[in-house]
């Protein structure tokens, strides 16, 4: 099993519903977020191009955060989801420094927090909260090892990219372009 998410940058309108859904679902403290939206503007006027990306933890296969964690609090569970065990985390910040995507943050209670791919929902066969709430259905989630899953099919048919492939992290958050 290999969970992954594909973000359709052609369909995303940057409404921020995924961000709010995540904050509500996961009780993210006020002022913090586990997912966020980046607007990338490139080109010269009048030929400007906008790309909207809903970003979160990339649940990397070769995850630098798991490697550098001194206590083993950061770990990978079944399906390749990267998680933090709160009462093993000492809040040293090594994982935050090591993440090329700035996807982690120190929770006000001390431990390091991040996107969990809504593991509590996914293990019950549901989609992550951000995916379910997206009004343009631009988020696709599923198992890459299953060729019939939503995410496998769309990655087969569309062009995609990942962020900072040169970091060698093998991220599992795909952006359809």
């Amino acid at each position, binding site marked *: 099993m290999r969970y992954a998410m594909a973000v359709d940058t052609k369909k995303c309108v940057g409404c921020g519903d995924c961000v709010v859904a995540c904050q509500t679902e996961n009780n993210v403290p006020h002022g913090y*977020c586990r997912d966020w939206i980046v607007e990338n503007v490139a080109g010269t006027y009048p030929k400007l191009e906008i790309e909207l990306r809903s970003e979160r933890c990339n649940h990397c296969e070769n995850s630098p955060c798991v490697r550098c964690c001194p*206590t*083993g609090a950061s770990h990978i569970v079944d399906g390749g989801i990267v998680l933090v065990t709160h*009462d093993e985390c*000492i809040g040293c910040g090594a994982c935050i*420094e090591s993440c090329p995507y700035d996807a982690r943050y*120190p929770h006000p209670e*001390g431990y390091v927090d991040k996107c969990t791919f809504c593991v509590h929902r996914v293990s019950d066969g549901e989609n992550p909260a951000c995916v379910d709430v997206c009004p343009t259905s631009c988020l696709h989630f599923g198992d890459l090892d299953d060729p019939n899953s939503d995410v496998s099919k769309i990655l087969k048919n569309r062009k995609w990219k990942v962020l900072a492939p040169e*970091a060698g992290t093998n991220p599992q958050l795909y952006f359809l372009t």
Partner: protein
Amino acid sequence: MKEELFVSGRNIPHIDPYLHLWTWEIPLYLFLGGLAAGILFFAGYFYIMHKERDMTATIKWAPMLVPFLLVIGLGALFLDLHHKLYFWRLYTIIRLESPMSWGAWVLMAITPLSIVWAGTYVREVFPNFKWPLALLNDFETFAKKYRKAMAWVMMILAVILGVYTGILLSAFNARPLWNTSILGPLFLVSGFSTGLAAIIWMSKSKYERKVLTRIDLIFVFVELFFIIHMIMGLQAGSQAAIEASQLFLGGEFTVTFWIFVVLLGLLFPATLEIFELRGYHVPGWLPSFLILMGGLVFRFVILEAGQITRYLY
């Protein structure tokens, strides 16, 4: 034009708009750790070379400081933790992949060792000192028999500690400025040089100062070579690495780095040391003070600059 904006209002403390999670605690610790490693290495080395009579500051005086340096350093590390009450989790597991884990274990070994080493000399350094417990007296007699073994272990652990202060940062793939393998040797050499500077400052013997100053000069020039090497390596790297090196080549850390680290922290004290060896009168504390200051500023600069650097996408 190329512009990236967070349109969902992301403004997380310590992370946005640029990473500044580690502030003064980590560089202070890296400095104290390197300094302690330097002092312990040379205390062990000259003890093994049977220089106990000639090199009293190296073997007896300076190591008195080390337990305090390490405890202050550990205190700074503790202050840096965000989930402080769980710090003991560090010592429930050994993770070889994580430099921070084996660094924590090395500290666990070298701190008590430095206390025992200082304890075996404390009555020689302070003749009026008396152990409050008779048991400690017996322990001192016992530990004195194993000084040679301790010296060997101290030298090995000091090298690991010195390298670890650099590897801690170079293990972070996400920060191009840190992610260079030269950082380990560079921090080791810099730490040893600050250790020597501290011993020279404390030493009153002409012979000892001369020997240590000569060694320190070598370390300073190796450090300069490594710094040039680091910048050349970054310049020859990817776009992210080039941008990281630009922070020192016209970017916001240029003045701090070249004036306070390279000029005042390395070149100027090295010149003073050369003059001192040639027989000119130089205030004894000045080169040492400058090298120590340079070492401290160096760690602050590398830490702050490194956190700004990142992959570009």
